[in-house]
C-alpha cells in the first residue's frame, strides 16, 4: 500500500504558471485526475513521476522525495503518454529488457507474467513498430507492471483506444486496484473518469479545483446554472410564460432566440415543453449553450 503526497506543489515556466499550489494525497484505489486539455495534468504527472522538478512544494511517495531519487521506481510504475517505445524491439524483448533493468531475480518469468497480464502473448514476438495504438498502450502498461509496483501513474491511458480496448484496460486497472495498488490516471473525459475512478481530483488552469467522490463532483457539475438557447414560433410569448412560471434565473430576448439560465436542470427540461404547450408556442430548437467541458470546469473554478 503506497501513498503519494503533493504538498503545495507549483511549477512555472518563465512567467507561465502551469501548476499552482496543488496539495493532494493519493491513496490506494483508483484516482482519476480530471481536467481539460492544457490544464496542467501532464505537468503534474511528470512531477509525480520524477521527470520534472517542482518549482516549489514537494512530491513524496511514502515519505520519500520523488525528484532525483531513482530508488522510488522500485515502488512506482509509469506509463507515459507518448507512444514511442523502442520500436525495433519485439514486445517480449522490450518487457524482458525492462525486467532486467529492474534487476528482478527472475526477469524471464516476470516479463511473461506482465505480458500475460495485459493479454499480449499473441503479439509478443512482433516488433513494437508494427503494433496498433491499443497494443502499444498495453505493452507500455506491461513495462510499467513488470516489477509489480505498489503505485502506478498513467498519463491519458485511453487516448486513441477503440471502445473494446478501452473496456479491457478499464478491467485491468480495476483488477490492479482490487489488489491494493495505488493507481492514478489522467483524462479529460468525465465519463472515463466516472466509470473507473472511486476518487476524483479536478485540475483546471493549473489549480486544484475539486476533490472527492465522483457523485459529489457530478452533482457539482450538474447543479450549476445551465444556459439554453431556445428558438420558437413566438419568442416573446415564450419568454413571458417562462418568467411567469419562475423556473428560470434569467431570461434574455436576443435576435438569435431566447437565452434562458435555468437553476434546476432537471426541472427545467421537464417544464419547458409544458410551458410552451400551455402558451401555444411551438418550440423549434432547444440547445444548451454552455455544455462544453471547459465551461463546466470554469464553473467549478469560480465557485
Amino acid at each position, binding site marked *: 500500500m503506497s501513498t503519494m503526497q503533493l504538498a503545495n506543489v507549483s511549477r512555472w515556466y518563465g512567467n507561465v504558471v*502551469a501548476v499552482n499550489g496543488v496539495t493532494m494525497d493519493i491513496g490506494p484505489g483508483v484516482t482519476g485526475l480530471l481536467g481539460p*486539455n*492544457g490544464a*496542467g*495534468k*501532464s*505537468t503534474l504527472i*511528470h512531477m509525480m*513521476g*520524477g*521527470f*520534472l*522538478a517542482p518549482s516549489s512544494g514537494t512530491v513524496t511517495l511514502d515519505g520519500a522525495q520523488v525528484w*532525483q531519487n*531513482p*530508488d522510488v*521506481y*522500485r515502488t*512506482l*510504475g*509509469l506509463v*507515459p*503518454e*507518448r507512444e*514511442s*517505445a*523502442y520500436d*525495433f*524491439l519485439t514486445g517480449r524483448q522490450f518487457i524482458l*529488457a*525492462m525486467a*532486467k*533493468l*529492474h*534487476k528482478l531475480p527472475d526477469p524471464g518469468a516476470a516479463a511473461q507474467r506482465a505480458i500475460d497480464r495485459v493479454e499480449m502473448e499473441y503479439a509478443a514476438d512482433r516488433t513494437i513498430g508494427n503494433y496498433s495504438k491499443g497494443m502499444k498502450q498495453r505493452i507500455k502498461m506491461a*513495462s*510499467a507492471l513488470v516489477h509489480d509496483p505498489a503505485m502506478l501513474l498513467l498519463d491519458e491511458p485511453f487516448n486513441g483506444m477503440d471502445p473494446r480496448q478501452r473496456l479491457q484496460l478499464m478491467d485491468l486497472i480495476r483488477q490492479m486496484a482490487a489488489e491494493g495498488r495505488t493507481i492514478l490516471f489522467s483524462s479529460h473525459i468525465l465519463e472515463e473518469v466516472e466509470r473507473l475512478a472511486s476518487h476524483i481530483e479536478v485540475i483546471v488552469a493549473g489549480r486544484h479545483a475539486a476533490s472527492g467522490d465522483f457523485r459529489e463532483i457530478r452533482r457539482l457539475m450538474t447543479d450549476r446554472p445551465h444556459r439554453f438557447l431556445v428558438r420558437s414560433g413566438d419568442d416573446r410569448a415564450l419568454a413571458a410564460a417562462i418568467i411567469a412560471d419562475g423556473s428560470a434565473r434569467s431570461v434574455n430576448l436576443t435576435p438569435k432566440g431566447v437565452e434562458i439560465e435555468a437553476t434546476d436542470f432537471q426541472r427545467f427540461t421537464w417544464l419547458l415543453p409544458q410551458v410552451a404547450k400551455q402558451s401555444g408556442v411551438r418550440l423549434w430548437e432547444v440547445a444548451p449553450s454552455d455544455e462544453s467541458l471547459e465551461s463546466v470546469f470554469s464553473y467549478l473554478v469560480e465557485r
Partner: protein
Amino acid sequence: MNPTIAMITFRAMLGRRRALLLLGLPLLLLALAAGLRMTGTNDLEISTVVLQRFGIATLLPLLALIAGTGVLAPEIDDGQIMYVLTKPIPRQVIVLTKLAVAIVLVTLFAVLPAFLAGLVLTGMTAQVTPAFTVGMLVGGIAYSALFVALAVISRNAVTIGLLYALVWETLLGNFAPGAKSASVQQWALSVADALTDASTVRSTVDLPVALVLLALVTAIGTALAVVRLRSLSVASAE
C-alpha cells in the same frame, strides 16, 4: 555498465539507416588508401596527409559526433529515455554505458578503418600507422565524452557539435593559433606525433599539455552528462 542498456543502444544505433551513414566515410577512406597504393602515390608525406586530414580531422570528429549524440539524443527527443530513467539505476551507470557504446562505435567505424588504411598506405613505416591509431583512439574517447555531454545538455547537440568540429577546429584553427591549441583534434595529433619518428607528423600542442587536456575533457564531459541527466526534465506535452 549495464548490459541491457548497451544492448538496446547498439541495436538502436546499428539497426537503422544510421548504420549506413556510419559505414560510408570509413569505406571512402579505405578506398582512397587502396587507390593511392595501387597508383604508387603512397609515400610517407601523402600517407600522413591522408591519415591526418581524412582520419583525425574529418572521420574522427564526424563519427564521434554521430555516435556520441546518437546514443542519447534520439532517445531524449522521442521520450524513450523514460523507460531507462524510470528504473532504480544510478545515473552514472546510464551515462558510462552510453559513453562506452559510443567509444566502441568510434573504434569500429573510425579508429579501426584508419588503422587498416594506414597499413595499406605505409605498413609499419616509422610507426606512423600505430601512432595515428593510438592518437585517434584517445581523441575518439575525448570527442565521445564531449558529444555525449552535449546530447544531454542541448536539444541542438548535433548542430553545436558540427559547428565546433567544422568551424572551430577546422576553420578558425587555420587562422588563429589559439583556437588550434584548444582542439581535441590537435591533442590527438600531439599523441600521434609523440609516437612516430616521421617528421611529417607535426603538432602545435606539447604532449603533456595534450594528455592533461584530453583527460580533463573526458572527465568533465562525463561528469557534466551525469549531473544533467540526473535533473533531465522531460518536455511537457502541454
